């Protein structure tokens, strides 16, 4: 099968363009439907890897440390993100705990693990073993990663409770905020760009571009 590395197709309307080299900060839009075609990467792989390492740390703190601590008449309580998911698992609404655990904990974790696996290889222009399935999974996971919703949820819950109990933020909330920003930078961006970055060393029947 012939492939065309010099072309790009708009995912939203199927228009075909010749792939250009965007200047730093430039974004190429589709002339027909105005969707984003591709954008210049703000990070090189080195920085991408460093931010992914930071995301590993932020993820661990966000999931171990309590996000909020409340007190009422001398009694204290605190909850980490996973305990909130566990709280859903009791009672009639229990099944919803499964997608919740996926969206705020497991999917972000998988995104980070997969990037930790593929990026060190990409740094030296190589494709990690299992690169293709890893990249397909990264693309499929993207819509289901919801740490930013989790952060807003923590804030709303805090305000909601502050009217009748004392509320204090825990270390987890700062880590969740950091994780939100890091995930947007490392996983919401154009991960497909990694294919082009590792193209030279690619084995297999690729047509010359």
């Amino acid at each position: 099968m012939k492939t065309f590395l010099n072309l790009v197709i708009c995912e939203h309307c199927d228009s075909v363009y010749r792939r250009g080299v965007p200047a730093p900060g430039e974004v190429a839009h589709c002339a027909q439907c105005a969707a984003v075609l591709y954008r210049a990467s703000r990070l090189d792989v080195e920085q991408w890897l460093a931010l992914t390492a930071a995301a590993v740390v932020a993820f661990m703190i966000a999931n171990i440390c309590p996000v909020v601590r409340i007190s009422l008449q001398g009694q204290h309580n605190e909850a980490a993100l996973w305990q909130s998911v566990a709280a859903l698992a009791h009672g009639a609404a229990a099944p919803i705990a499964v997608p919740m655990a996926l969206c705020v904990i497991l999917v972000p974790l998988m995104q980070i693990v997969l990037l930790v696996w593929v990026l060190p290889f990409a740094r030296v222009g190589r494709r990690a073993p299992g690169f293709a399935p890893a990249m397909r999974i990264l693309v499929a996971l993207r819509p289901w990663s919801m740490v930013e919703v989790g952060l807003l949820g923590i804030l709303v819950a805090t305000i909601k409770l502050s009217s009748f109990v004392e509320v204090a933020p825990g270390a987890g909330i700062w880590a969740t905020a950091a994780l939100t920003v890091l995930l947007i930078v490392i996983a919401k961006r154009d991960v497909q760009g990694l294919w082009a970055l590792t193209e030279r060393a690619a084995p297999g029947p690729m047509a010359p571009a």
Partner: protein
Amino acid sequence: MSLPPRARQLGVVGCHACGLVCEDKLDETGHADCPRCGAALHRRRPDSLARAGAFLLAGMIFYIPANMLPVMYTSLLGSGSDNTILRGVVEFWKAGSYGIALVIFTASVAVPCTKFLVLGLLLATCRRRSRWARRERARLYRLVEFVGYWSMLDVLVVAIVAALVKFQALSDIEPRLGILFFGMVVILTMLSALSFDPRLIWDGDDTNR
């Protein structure tokens, strides 16, 4: 301004997973995998309108119990009460917390209803192969894709509040069945948006070009 050619006219097809542009041999082979990443190639997402319609209908049906049934049981100093989503919004509004009432109203009423309307409109117009306002409809689809998952906010707030407020005799908060239905609405409408193929918006004029 002359519009760019479309993939079908050039006999190419784009890989949905890695973005590679491949020669379209689907007529001869019936089924083809992307030579770079191994994902199945499709000109359009399979059974797009039927699947998106089924998920949307299921989501709309679940939205009824999600609003009728209580999402949370609150007991404060012995007196317990069930809360629906809308009653929660009204209580915040009455208590003067307008900002938070608006946030919850947006996430749990405005966003889901907008999704129902937009997806219903897109499905109806694409079934009729309408050429009406295609650029605007393409934008609407991207809007739904972008805001869709923020509705998960309510589920998270209930989870966090339920995990925190556990004070034996003083106060207790438990998730109720309504939140399960609400979470299902969010997931079903996300599946509907993911099944819908925005390229169908632009397919109406194939015969006239």
